[in-house]
């Protein structure tokens, strides 16, 4: 997986700035780093664009620190889309739909957590301390990407900041919870990955039959809850049987951590 953060700023340009991606998309870039404040501005503009529906805009793709606005070049032109976006940036901040808080059960044991000991060793922490540091914070969903339904979550306590593994794994099982570069990801399906695998969740993050198919959305919050292996196995069996409901808690707009 490509790393999310550039190490240094190499441009003096003021943000936000507009970048063209050919003649089918404009990117509004709010900065260069992975940062909660920047991401909240991305999600604000995303909400404003979705509400305003400028002519010719086909879809939007919010990412860590930029919003890609895809348009039909036979319906509109970059200059028109840019004007519409500039106007939305200058108006009062759009009301972002308050995110939701998900309580995600994770088993941090044995074969479900093959990198946990290495992470503990590298960071100088005990296994229990690593788990505690991962289950304590409220994680923010920055974006969904890489594969369908995969959430990028942050930020990790600095004590857990690690580069990616030297060699990526060819196969990580579905539900893998992995950390690197100050972030956590959860792999919805079996896929390759270079992050440190510290646990697994039985929760289904992507269900083609659900609408929307992705469980989480940018702006949501996640709290990881440690479960023992036997509880995890029961949950996973329930998921297979289709009787493991996971429902989010709504967040009030003024609750700390929301983007409104």
């Amino acid at each position, binding site marked *: *997986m*490509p*790393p*999310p*953060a*550039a*190490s*240094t700023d*190499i*441009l003096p340009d003021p943000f936000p700035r507009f*970048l*063209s*991606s*050919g*003649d*089918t*998309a404009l*990117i509004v*870039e709010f900065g*260069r*780093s*992975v940062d909660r404040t920047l991401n909240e501005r991305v999600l604000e503009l*995303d909400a404003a664009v979705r509400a305003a529906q400028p002519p010719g805009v*086909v*879809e*939007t*793709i*919010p*990412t*860590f*620190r*930029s*919003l*890609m606005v*895809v348009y039909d*070049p*036979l319906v509109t*032109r*970059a*200059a028109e889309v840019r004007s519409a976006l500039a106007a939305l940036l200058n108006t009062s901040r759009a009301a972002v739909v308050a995110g939701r808080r998900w309580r995600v059960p994770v088993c941090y044991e044995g074969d479900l957590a093959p990198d946990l000991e290495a992470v503990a060793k590298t960071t100088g922490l005990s296994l229990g301390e690593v788990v505690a540091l991962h289950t304590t914070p409220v994680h923010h969903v920055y*974006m*969904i*990407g*890489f*594969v*369908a*339904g*995969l959430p*990028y979550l942050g930020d990790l306590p600095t004590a857990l900041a690690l580069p990616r593994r030297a060699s990526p794994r060819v196969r990580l099982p579905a539900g893998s919870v992995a950390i690197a570069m100050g972030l956590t990801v959860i792999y919805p*399906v079996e896929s390759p990955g270079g992050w440190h695998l510290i646990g697994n969740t039985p929760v289904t993050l*992507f269900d*083609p039959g659900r609408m*929307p*198919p*992705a469980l989480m*959305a*940018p702006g949501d919050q996640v709290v990881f809850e440690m479960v023992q292996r036997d509880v995890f196995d029961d949950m996973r069996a329930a998921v297979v049987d289709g009787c493991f409901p996971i429902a989010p808690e709504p967040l009030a707009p003024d609750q700390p951590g929301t983007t409104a």
Partner: protein
Amino acid sequence: MTPQLLVDQPGLHTTVQDFGRTGHQAFGVPVAGALDPEALRGANRLVGNPDGTAALEILHAGPAITVAADSVRIALAGTETTIDVAGQNDAWVSVPAWQSIRLSHGQRVRIGRLVDTACAVLAIEGGLDLPAWLGSRSTYVRAGMGGFRGRALVAGDRLPLFRSSSTDRQELRAARRPDIAPGTPVRVVLGPQDDYFTAAAIDTLLSAAYKVSAQSDRMGLRLEGPPLAHLDGADIASDGIVTGAIQVPGAGLPILLLNDHQTSGGYPKIATVISADLPRLGRHRVGEMLRFAAVSVAEAEDLRRARDVALTEVLDSITPAANAGWLDPAALHSENLISGVVDYSRPDDTDL
């Protein structure tokens, strides 16, 4: 019985594709869709379908199919490869692409190696009776979603059809073809992250020739040639990707992203192919050389509009075939007028 097409041979990589699955990239769902949407539109027009009806996209070599419906009308577009239609006594008749053919129950057709392109589209009148997912029947093989069971066709597949018989009408033929501009540079707009590269890298991209490598697929054309140097590393915070983006990982070799690209990525994109040139990209075969030329966004927009006018002229050139008699292989055999009979056992056509 459900009308079907029986897949006797699948071809190299044959998938169901339409215009793609837009509107869900924010959840990580790739667009997919036909690499050559102009061929998709042409093939569908020839069989009387709406332009975006899901059809079979063929890569490199096409399938062999037996009709298990009362009758079915098909058309191949995006190539000049002929369709072999089985007549009497297992003799094969070659029928040109870019025109519709009506086939009867039990009749067999096959499309061999594509002679002039890496991709082509075979449309079926009425379309394939497959479930749409998120508004599209396009196959995204990497996640096993959409199309026919989320995968490329395999021998023995039975593709359900919406129609049990073809409409009774004259066959259609296209007099014109989309301009594929062979040998001319692929036009790009620099960026969105051209400022992550040295000036020499930009010069190299716009002057060197790049070869399409064997690792290319519907996700992207991997290019071999002079590496492109980054100013300060190849890592950016992951951001959105459009089809046609040229991303450059650490080793400096560009990857030209096609329809099955991921929705986000963490490598800088040095340039983006303009939308007027996107239908050309998937046509490139392994080993072919590509060159790039830069245009402005405004120029790209004008070129796209001109391309759309030209495509309309191609679609408007689709008219009833003047002499459709030879399109009926059975009649051809009886009248002994066959010009292109192909022996079923011809070895270079049976190595799929």
